[in-house]
């Protein structure tokens, strides 16, 4: 197995799909010859030609509208939105079109072959418009699947599954980890299941839940807690919608304590949905209130990014508060 970074894992997954399926098409702003501003589509145009990997004009609603039509036609449409912060011009195409295509037509038509890839998240000095985590907006839309990988191995397996899944998927890529996260990734084709969370560390005292880049922050907090003698069970949610209630509820039933952490602002974030559901599912097993450790309710800052972020120390404090409640 080769050691590769998260970008290379994504590029690898795209390469596998483009090679096996001549109706797979990758496109977006700067995606063609340049290979994307992060180089996720590097080399694909050279390998598969301009008609299957290309630049689009600067128009996100056009990119996703085009992708919807292409997927409805039966092609495998893999669209890139350069930053998740710039997905909002395409909000109508995603929320009113992609998500409702199958339902509104009574399954006469669908865009199951659509995958939208987009880098998200902070910690890169990107300020307001290169740092957001907008997963909760899309989690509020039945018909979409929302997937977030935490490392290169997960990224390749989840992206292959997302592209082949017969539903429209938004695949949020943690751009802070694009080059920072390196790990062993099999060269062959493999898929990881959508809608399934993964227990990444077993523990007995408290359950910690996160997704994407936030998982390693939670792991750091768990290491601090371990030195205080607290045994943390860590779960990576992996798929935000539809999410794996069972795995999370089973863990919280066992530990009786629960901290959920996300990069996005607290209010109406997906952590809130999880907290409400787990409170209902595990009420009699809970030893303490569920804690949410999230970004603050401000736009994403620049100079004060460290202060804003749901870092390992804030999570560590929430673990201790929950343990001693």
């Amino acid at each position, binding site marked *: 197995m080769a050691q590769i970074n998260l970008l290379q894992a994504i590029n690898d997954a795209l390469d596998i799909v483009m090679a096996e399926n001549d109706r797979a*098409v990758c496109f977006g702003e700067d995606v063609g010859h340049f290979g994307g501003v992060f180089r996720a589509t590097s080399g694909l145009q050279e390998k598969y030609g301009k008609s299957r990997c290309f630049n689009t004009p600067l128009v996100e609603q056009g990119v996703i509208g085009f992708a919807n039509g*292409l997927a409805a036609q039966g092609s495998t449409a893999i669209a890139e939105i350069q930053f998740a912060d710039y997905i909002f011009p395409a909000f109508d195409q995603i929320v009113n079109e992609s998500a409702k295509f199958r339902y509104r*037509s009574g399954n006469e038509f669908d865009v199951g072959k659509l995958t939208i890839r987009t880098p998200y998240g902070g910690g890169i000095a990107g300020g307001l418009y290169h740092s957001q985590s907008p997963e909760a907006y899309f989690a509020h839309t039945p018909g979409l699947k929302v997937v977030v990988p935490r490392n290169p191995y997960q990224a390749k397996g989840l992206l292959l599954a997302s592209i082949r899944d017969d539903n429209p998927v938004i695949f949020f890529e943690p751009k802070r980890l694009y080059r920072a996260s390196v790990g062993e990734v099999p060269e062959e084709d493999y898929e990881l299941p959508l809608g399934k969370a993964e227990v990444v560390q077993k523990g007995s005292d408290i359950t910690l839940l996160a997704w994407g880049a936030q998982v390693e922050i939670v792991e750091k907090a768990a290491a601090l807690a371990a030195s205080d003698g607290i045994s943390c069970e860590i779960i990576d949610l992996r798929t935000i919608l539809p999410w794996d209630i069972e795995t999370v509820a089973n863990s919280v039933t066992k530990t009786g304590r629960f901290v959920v952490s996300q990069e996005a602002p607290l209010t109406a974030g997906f952590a809130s949905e999880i907290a409400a559901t787990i409170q209902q599912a595990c009420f009699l097993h809970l030893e303490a209130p569920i804690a949410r450790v999230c970004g603050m309710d401000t736009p994403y800052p620049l100079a004060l990014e460290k202060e804003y972020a749901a870092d390992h120390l804030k999570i560590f404090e929430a673990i201790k508060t929950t343990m001693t409640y």
Partner: protein
Amino acid sequence: MNTDVYSESKVVHQPAFIDGHSVEIPILKILKQDGSIYENAAMPNIDQALATKTYKTLAFHRVLDERMVAAQRQGRISFYMTALGEEAASVGGAAGLKDQDMIMAQYREQGALMFRGFSLENFMNQMFSNEKDLGKGRQMPIHYGSRELNYMTISSPLGTQIPQAAGYAYGQKLQGLDAVTICYFGEGAASEGDFHAGLNMAAVHQAPVIFFCRNNGYAISTPSEEQYVGNGIASRGVGYGMKTIRIDGNDILAVIAAVQLARAYGIKEGKPVLIEAMSYRLGAHSTSDDPSGYRTREEEAKWQEHDPILRMKNWMLAQGWWDEAQETALFEKLRDEVLAAVKVAEKIDKPPVEDLITDVYDQVPPLLQSQFDELKEHIKKYPKAYPFSAGRIK
């Protein structure tokens, strides 16, 4: 890099603006209202069989619209939209295409679906949201769709089909199919961002789309002079570097000729075309609207003189392909059939409650399934509150 504009433009040394009206855009007319053909007009490829099918579709359209407005007024259906006065745009469009071409309509193009052979029963089942509706009773009346007939299911948000048509046609071309996509919208929807996105995407990526603008003068109550001030919608096609044509939308032969030309160009060159069809929405926007609040009877009367169906009838009579006895018999038969179909469709059950949760995804996710199980228990508890579903829960 596109440097030719810099190096190859005509050079001037005095500042002066140009405007959209400096590009002269002619309007294609082939058929006169009296049924005669303009001198030197290039006829579309149309024989007696195609002409008869086209005319019968126009007649069906007119009758269905009349009857369904009446049905809405009687409270039998919730909503309806006619295409009164502009039926030639949709029927002529379909008549100029092949069956394998995709039709992505806005919502006032039921004529194209009629031409493709969507049955009267299918129209009725959709409008009555019953269990035989292909759309499973999920959308308001007139949101038709049929995979078999290559007619994309209607979506209420305006203009969303425009960039989708670019993608759909790109896929057709990539696969090497003998097929194009026609995309309908109004001059109002052409103000939406999706219009500009879609035309530019299609032009840049060379997708064989026929963008068909029905410029019918009104977007609900807003007249076109409050919608745009440029040289119609056609001037925008020129701006996007697209072959463009303006036609008389009430002239069925002009519609067919333009669409046939656009189709041949799309197949040969693999590029999009913009057609701007000038017409007038003689009916209300929908049954929820009353045009007397925003326009005059005189204005409407003037456009009634341009009735596209009467114009085609006059031509058919002149060709000797149609007569008054056939006319009377056809309209009587259609009215009877529509009335009978209403009576059948309104008695068919609503969709089963399971249709509430299917097709959100390819498979029902666990959380949605548990919500559905709770719903079934709830309905069993209060059966009188849910009379359509209470007796049918499995």
